[in-house]
């Protein structure tokens, strides 16, 4: 049997490593730390009254996984013997795929989801275009996008929205397999 020796105030590094084991409920291949959902971990106060404050940020406003993630975070820490855990949700600055770790990108790819390419800033609509009345076009295909199954770059967008808001649906023209692309956001 696995026994946990409760430590009153585990180190911040230790807490981060426990959180790094919490899976994203919709893409279990990747952790919430890899996704950049955990923004901050700190101890408030000291001794027996010390409270651990974990700050998380939702990916998309309507992401239904947010409530599950909050429960998982608290569960992951209390199961290690921590009793005073407080969760705070912060929406500003807004979550961006720029915060996704390299490790997370590799795990996504291995799971069959093409990881986001480029920086989020390139996705916004230029104010100068709006001023000129130009129609916001569908994004150009992210350069370097390759099928996570066979590696071919002959891929085609089927839908800007896939199985979740964070993904777009593509199909590979070489191996004919459909795949998700985690949109740059």
């Amino acid at each position, binding site marked *: 049997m696995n026994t946990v020796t409760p430590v009153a105030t585990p180190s911040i590094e230790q807490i981060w490593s426990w959180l790094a084991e919490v899976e994203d409920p919709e893409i279990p291949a990747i952790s919430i730390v890899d996704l950049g959902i955990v923004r901050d971990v700190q101890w408030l106060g000291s001794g027996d009254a010390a409270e651990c404050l974990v700050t998380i940020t*939702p990916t*998309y*406003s*309507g*992401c*239904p996984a947010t409530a599950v993630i909050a429960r998982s975070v608290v569960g992951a820490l209390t199961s290690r013997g921590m009793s005073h855990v407080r969760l705070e949700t912060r*929406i*500003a*600055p*807004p*979550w*961006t795929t720029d915060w996704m770790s390299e490790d997370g990108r590799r795990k996504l790819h291995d799971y069959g989801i093409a990881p986001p390419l480029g920086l*989020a800033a390139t*996705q*916004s*609509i230029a*104010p100068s275009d*709006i*001023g*000129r*009345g*130009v*129609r*916001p*076009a*569908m*994004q150009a295909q992210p350069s370097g996008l390759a099928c996570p199954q066979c590696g071919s770059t002959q891929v085609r967008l*089927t*839908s*800007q*929205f*896939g*199985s*979740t*808001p964070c993904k777009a*649906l593509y199909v590979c023209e070489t191996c004919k397999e459909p795949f998700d692309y985690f*949109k740059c*956001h």
Partner: protein
Amino acid sequence: MIDDKFDYLLRLGDNALVLSQRLTEWVGKGPALEEDMALANTALDLIGQARLWLGYAGEVEGLGRTENQLAFLRDAHDFRNLLLVEQPNGGYADTLVRQYFFDSWHHLLLDELTRSADPRIAGIAEKAIKEVTYHLRRSADLVVRLGDGTDESHRRMQAAVDDLWIYTGEMFQPDAVDEVLEAQGVATDVAALREPWLAQVRHTLAEATLTMPSPEAWMQKGGKQGRHGEHLGFLLAEMQFLQRAYPGAQW
């Protein structure tokens, strides 16, 4: 002052909530699987935004009302959404044109609100605009593809543009609530959004080979002040049924 900000937040929240409810009416009935998913995803983004706006509205009001109480326990005359978003789904052309008219305005508005003097409003706007950018890219693209599509799709799109045009004027008409909050730097001058909106819509409709109705046409108004058409009550009857029939029911 509190009342003005509460009212303003209800407008932002109710636009997102009511349009989200309309879009979810399509779920399972979309013309193609990808379209069904895109509508559901857009609706999900909007409901998330509605929660943020209404949650903050409840805090500002200070009477302990939660986002859920505001969504499910208000009657039609207490809703502050634009008339445009409560319009029935109609055919797919009607749904898309309604979405494009709203998205293009929503994007301009949120861009201004990212510079609001109220940091909570600026923060929500900054989060929402990232999502709305995708909504706008998609709806603008589909307006062009279907407008400049077959004779039948063109005819349906033109009819939708003509029918919904009358509800677009309200987006740019400031009232006392807008003016009070604009003076505080919290809100933006909606009248100033009109020219960039018209420029973008003119460009997009031209590319779609559709005719833009006159910007000087007579326009409906009243949604922002709680004077709604006959459709909103039916929408709320469905959306609020559970909480009305089983008050306080929880998952």
